[in-house]
Structure formats: structure tokens, C-alpha cells
């Protein structure tokens, strides 16, 4: 096993363990902090697999922006102990774990069955400048669509998050 292979397996174990811890925590804050660790591990995996720009974006967007947004919402919504009862309810987890195990087995079998999947990945690195040139030459239109999607999400979040207006009937409705 090469050095890069060892780093890969270490990072894989880090990501898997922190994700398991994240999805089994009772309190959302603990889950979010574990998930930040998981996303840092994923960012290092991205770097190992030759995507330094996306590794940086993973830290900034996922570990930074999205998880901090989650933390803000957890602070805003004064959470009662949201999952009732103690511990993890078996009735909720058992079907999910069975279904997950079945789909995991099927997908793993499909992956292993293809012989070309056993070829080793050769290291490579996509320089950010090359990635930027590629993105804006080949995928300029999806980039515009993505920016438009973000704008729509911003407007939607503002609309949903506005304060409730006074409970006066709208004048146009009274005139009918």
C-alpha cells in the first residue's frame, strides 16, 4: 500500500466514523459539529483525488456556510427535546437500517462485479486555473443557471422567513 493509499484509508475511516456519530446524535448541535469534522475529511479526500479547488470550496461552502447556517437555525428554533423518548427508537431505526443494508449490498456487488473498477486510480491534480477555464468554456450556461437557482433560493428564503403581517384581511378580498 502506497503512502497515498494509507492516507486514503485513514481519511475514509475518519469520514465514516464521524458521519456515523453525526447521524446517531440526539441533539442536532452535536450532530452538526461531528458533520463539520466529516466534511473536513471529505475536503482532504477531494484534495487527495486531485481537486484542490473543490477541496477549498468544500471547506468554505459545506463546512463553513451550510453548517453554520444549520447552527443558526438550531439556535433560532428553541428546540424541545425533539425526538421523544430515550435513546434511539428501534422501531424507527430497524427498517431504515435493513433497507440501507440491502441497498448497500446491492450497490457494492454491482461495483465489485465490474472488472474495470479494480483499476487503480492514478494520482493527478487539476490546477484551479485549468478548472476555471474548463468550467467557463464548456459549462458556462449551467453556471448561469446555478447562479439563477441561488438567486431564486435567496428570494424564496426571504419570502418564507418574513415576519407574519398583521392579521388584517387584505383589502382586495373585502371588496369582492
Amino acid at each position, binding site marked *: 500500500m502506497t503512502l497515498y493509499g494509507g492516507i*486514503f484509508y485513514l481519511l475514509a475511516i475518519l469520514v465514516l466514523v464521524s458521519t456515523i456519530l453525526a447521524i446517531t446524535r440526539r441533539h442536532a448541535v452535536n450532530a452538526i459539529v461531528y*458533520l463539520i469534522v466529516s466534511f473536513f475529511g471529505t475536503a482532504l479526500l477531494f484534495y487527495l*483525488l486531485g481537486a484542490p479547488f473543490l477541496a477549498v470550496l468544500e471547506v468554505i461552502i459545506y463546512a463553513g456556510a451550510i453548517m453554520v447556517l444549520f447552527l443558526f*437555525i438550531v439556535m433560532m428554533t428553541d428546540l424541545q427535546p425533539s425526538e421523544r423518548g430515550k435513546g434511539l427508537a428501534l422501531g424507527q*431505526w430497524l427498517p431504515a437500517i435493513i433497507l440501507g443494508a440491502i441497498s448497500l449490498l446491492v450497490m457494492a456487488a454491482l461495483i465489485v462485479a465490474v472488472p474495470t473498477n479494480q483499476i487503480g486510480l492514478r494520482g493527478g491534480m487539476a490546477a484551479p486555473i485549468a478548472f476555471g477555464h*474548463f468550467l467557463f468554456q464548456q459549462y458556462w450556461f449551467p453556471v448561469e443557471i446555478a447562479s439563477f437557482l441561488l438567486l431564486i433560493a435567496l428570494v424564496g428564503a426571504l419570502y*418564507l*422567513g418574513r415576519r407574519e403581517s398583521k392579521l388584517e384581511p387584505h383589502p382586495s378580498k373585502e371588496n369582492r
Partner: protein
Amino acid sequence: MIVPYSHLLILAVILFVMGAVCTIARRNLIMILIGVEIMLNAAGLAFIGASLYWKQLDGQAFVLFIMAVAASEVAVGLALIVYLQRRTGSVNADDYSAMKG
């Protein structure tokens, strides 16, 4: 050579299934959204591996769009959670039983 391609795909599949289990089993709306995030992240990992496998940059471009979709989904989803919490005072999916018939 780093690792066989299949190992990377299996790591992505395990992460995806973990996110799916979290989405199915948890009742807290915030945890459900976190499960969706884990699934999107696992898909991104598979894309990056494929990008390295075929030495094409398209996979990395797709990860960028996945990140944009994840960010907008989280923004709207969390706004919906805040809205629901104001309306019903709860973020537990079991409490939304107005349509139970």
C-alpha cells in the same frame, strides 16, 4: 496509484446509505436535512473519483453544481423549518398530523 476505483465508489456508497438512513429514521426536520446533505456530499465524492478515473474535468464541474444545489436547498429548507416552527411550534415531523384523515 492511490487506491482501486472500486474502493472509492464503495466509500461513496456507504456515505450515501448513511445519509439515506439518517433521512428515513430521524424525526427531527433538521436531522432530515442533514441526511440530505450527507447524500449530496457522497454523490460529489463519487463524481470526483470518476473525474480522476477518466482524467476528465466534467466530474469536478458537476460537483460545483451539486454544491450550488445543496446550498440553495439548505437555504429554502431551513427557511421552511423556521416557518413551520413559527406556525406549529415544533420541528418534529411526527407533529405535523393535520392531514392524517
